[in-house]
C-alpha cells in the first residue's frame, strides 16, 4: 500500500496549478516569508555553515553504518520496554499498525504529522480497518477535512488561503453556530483547538513520526511547534512511532548537532517549540504517558538506495528548505508533483522509491538553478541527482517520443560543429530580421510550450559562439 500518485501527469498538473489563482496567491507565502526567515536565522549563527558540514558528515556516517546502529537502536528500545517492528514495504507497515490497533480495540487514533505515514497510505489502511483517524497538526487537520494530501512536507496546508480554511470549517463544523465570526486566523485556530482537544482526550492510540531515532539510548525524537505531537503520544494508552530506517542518529549529541540546522532551515526558528525525546512506555510511578510504546521501522525501498548514486538523498532530514527555495515549486506548488514528496527532494526521492517509470517526469521539473543545494542543511547535491534521473529516464526510453526526437536532432548538429554554427547563425539572422519591428515573437515553431506563457525576444546580434569569439579576441587584445 502506498499513497495514490499522479506524478506521471506532472505536466497536466503543473498546467492546472499555473492557472489556479487561489493557489498562486497562497504560494506567495512561500516565495517570501519563509526564505527570509531562514536567511536571518542562518546569518545570526556564526557557526551555521560549519554546522551544515557537520550535519552532512553525521548523516553520511549513519548511512555507512546503518545496520549496526539499527541493531543497537532495537536493543535499546526493547530494553526500555518498547517494541520494534520492521516493515519491508508500506503495506507491511500498515498491517503491523492496524494489527496493534485491532489488538488494543482502538476505535479512534490521533496522529501527529508524519510524512512516512503519508507515504505508506496509513490513514486509508486504518479507516478500512474501521478506525477513526484524526490528524492533529493544524495544517494536516485542515487538509484532512478537505480530503487532500499535504502540499509541503512541513507546511501541509501552504496551498490554502485563510478564506479556504474558513469555508471548510463552516462546512464541516456544523454543530457550531452558523453565524459565528471566523474572520481572524486566531478564531480559526481556537475553533480547531477546541475540537481537537476533545479528540486528544478520547483517543485510544496515538501515532507520531520521528525526526531522529537515537541508537545510543533507543530514543525517538519529534520536533514540533504546536504541541499536538505531544498530546498525541502522551494521552492515549498506546503510542506508535512510525519512521523510516534512515532516521538514525548515533548519539544524543549527534541529534543535537542536526537539530541546530533543522529548525533554522525549515522555519527560520533557532529551535522549534517542542523537541520531545521518548524512550519506552510509562515507568513505575508515572501518572501519565502511554502503557505501550511501539516503533515501526519502514524500509520501503530505502535499503536499495544505499550504495547507489542516490545514497546522498538518504541524508535528507525533511526540513523543506529545498522546496522553499525552488522556483518550480513556487510556480506550481506541491500537489503538481503528484505524490507525497514535492520539490527538489521529491523529484529525487519519488523515482527512487516508486520507480523512474512513475516518477521520471519530476526531475525534469527543474531549472538547475542550484538554490536547493545552496539551502540544503545536509548539502545534498540535488541538481546532480536530478540529472542522474534524467539520464536514467533517457536510457530507459521513458522520455516522450518528441523529446527523444528533438534531442537526437540537436545531437546530430551538436556533433557537427560546422553545420551547427552555420545553422544557428542563419536562424539567428532570420529571426533578427523577422522580429526587427516588434522586438519579440509571440509564437515560435516547436516552442509553443514556452511562448504560450511569455514572448520570445528577438535575437540582437550573432550567435552566442560568435559573440564569445569576438569578446575573447577583444580581451586578448587588451592583455597584450
Amino acid at each position, binding site marked *: 500500500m502506498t499513497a495514490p500518485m499522479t506524478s506521471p501527469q506532472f505536466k497536466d498538473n503543473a498546467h492546472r496549478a499555473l492557472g489556479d489563482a487561489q493557489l498562486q496567491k497562497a504560494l506567495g*507565502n512561500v516565495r517570501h516569508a*519563509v526564505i527570509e526567515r531562514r536567511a536571518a536565522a542562518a546569518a545570526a*549563527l*556564526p557557526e551555521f555553515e560549519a554546522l551544515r558540514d557537520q550535519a552532512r558528515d553525521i548523516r553520511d*556516517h549513519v548511512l555507512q*553504518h*546503518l*545496520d*549496526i*546502529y*539499527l*541493531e*543497537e537502536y532495537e536493543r535499546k528500545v526493547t530494553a*526500555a520496554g518498547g517494541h520494534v517492528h*520492521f*516493515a*519491508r514495504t508500506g503495506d507491511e507497515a500498515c498491517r503491523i499498525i492496524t494489527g496493534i490497533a485491532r489488538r488494543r480495540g482502538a476505535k479512534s487514533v490521533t496522529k501527529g504529522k508524519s510524512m512516512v505515514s503519508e507515504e505508506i497510505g496509513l490513514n486509508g489502511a486504518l479507516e478500512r480497518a474501521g478506525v477513526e483517524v484524526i490528524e*492533529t497538526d*493544524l*495544517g494536516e487537520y485542515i487538509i484532512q477535512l478537505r480530503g487532500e494530501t499535504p502540499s509541503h512536507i512541513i*507546511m501541509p496546508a501552504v496551498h490554502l488561503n485563510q478564506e479556504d*480554511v474558513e469555508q471548510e470549517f463552516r462546512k464541516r463544523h456544523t454543530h457550531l453556530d452558523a453565524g459565528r465570526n471566523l474572520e481572524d*486566523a486566531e478564531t*480559526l*485556530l481556537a475553533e480547531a483547538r477546541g475540537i481537537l*482537544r476533545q479528540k486528544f482526550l478520547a483517543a485510544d492510540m496515538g501515532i507520531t513520526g520521528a525526526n531522529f531515532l537515537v*541508537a*545510543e*539510548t533507543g530514543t525517538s525524537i519529534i520536533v514540533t*511547534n*504546536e*504541541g499536538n505531537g505531544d*498530546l498525541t503520544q*502522551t494521552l492515549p494508552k498506546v503510542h506508535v512511532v512510525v519512521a523510516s530506517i534512515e532516521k538514525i542518529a*548515533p*548519539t*544524543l*549529541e549527534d541529534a*543535537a*548537532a542536526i537539530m*541546530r540546522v533543522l529548525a533554522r532551515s525549515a522555519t527560520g526558528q*533557532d*529551535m*522549534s*517549540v*517542542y*523537541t*520531545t*525525546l*521518548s524512550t519506552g512506555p510509562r*515507568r513505575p*510511578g*508515572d*501518572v*501519565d504517558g502511554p502503557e505501550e510504546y511501539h516503533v515501526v521501522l519502514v*524500509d520501503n525501498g530505502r*535499503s536499495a*538506495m544505499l*550504495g*547507489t548514486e542516490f545514497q546522498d538523498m538518504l541524508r535528507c532530514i525533511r526540513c523543506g528548505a529545498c522546496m522553499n527555495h525552488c522556483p518550480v515549486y513556487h510556480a506550481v506548488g506541491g500537489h503538481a508533483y503528484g505524490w507525497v514528496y514535492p520539490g527538489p527532494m521529491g523529484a529525487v526521492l519519488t523515482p527512487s522509491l516508486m520507480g523512474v517509470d512513475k516518477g521520471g517526469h519530476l526531475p525534469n521539473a527543474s531549472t538547475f538553478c542550484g538554490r536547493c543545494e545552496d539551502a540544503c542543511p545536509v548539502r545534498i547535491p540535488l541538481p546532480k541527482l536530478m540529472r542522474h534521473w534524467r539520464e536514467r529516464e533517457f536510457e530507459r526510453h521513458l522520455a516522450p517520443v518528441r523529446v527523444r526526437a528533438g534531442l537526437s536532432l540537436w545531437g546530430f548538429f551538436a556533433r557537427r560543429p560546422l553545420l551547427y554554427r552555420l545553422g544557428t547563425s542563419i536562424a539567428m539572422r532570420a529571426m533578427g530580421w523577422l522580429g526587427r519591428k516588434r522586438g519579440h515573437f509571440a509564437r515560435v515553431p516547436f516552442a509553443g510550450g514556452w511562448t504560450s506563457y511569455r514572448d520570445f525576444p528577438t535575437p540582437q546580434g550573432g550567435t552566442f559562439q560568435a559573440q564569445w569569439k569576438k569578446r575573447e579576441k577583444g580581451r586578448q587584445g587588451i592583455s597584450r
Partner: protein
Amino acid sequence: MKEARDQIFASIRRSLGVREGDAVRRQAAEARMEAARPGIQPVRGRGALEDRIAMFTRQAQSVSASVARVPRAADIPAEIACFLRDNNLPPAVRMGNDERLRDINWQGGGLEISHGASDGSQLNSVSHAEGGIAETGTLALVSGPHNPTTLNFLPDNHIVVVRGEAILATYEAIFAQLRTRFGKGVMPRTINLITGPSRSADIEQKLLLGAHGPRRLHVIILAESAGGDV
C-alpha cells in the same frame, strides 16, 4: 516479522557491500556511541552563570515566553500569584510531587494548589525543570510523578521553575547531566525540551500562539541576584 527484519538487514548490507561480522565498522559505530562526543557548539550560549542567565532570558523572551527572577524559593508563590493576577487568571495551580516544589511554603500566597497529572480541566500548571539551555532559551523537563508530562501541554498557562545554576550553555551540557543522573545510555521516559509557548503558522504563515499546547509560558529563574543583595 523476523523474516522482514532479516531481509531489511540483508538488503542494507548487500547495498553497502559489507558483511555482518565486519569488525572495523562495528568498532567505529560502537566507539562513537561510547564516546558520545559533542560536535561544534555555538559560542553564544557559553559564559559565566550571569551571562548564561542573561542569554537564556533574552532567547526565551524572543520566542514569547515571559521570564521572572526570584532570589529565594520562598518567593515563588508570590511570583506565581502575581503572574496569574496580571493575566486575569484564577489563583489555582496544579503540580506534581517534585520535592523542590513540595518544600516551598505555599501558605499565604493565596493560591489553591492541587497535585497530580492534568486531565485537561486545569487552567494553570507549575513544573520544575531539570535545567535550561542558554543557547536558545530552552527548558528541559523530565517526566515522572514529580513533573507529569500532561502538565506541560494540557493547561493553558504553564509556569516553570528553573534554578539559575541549572541553566547551561547547550543541549549537550544537559545531556551530559542526564547521563550522570540516569546512567549512560539510559533515559527517562520523556524529556521535553520546551522553547516558548505553543504556536502554529499553518494558516497563511501567520504566527499564532497557543495552537494545542499552552498559550503562555512563564519561566521563574531561581537565583540570587548578581550582586548578592536582593
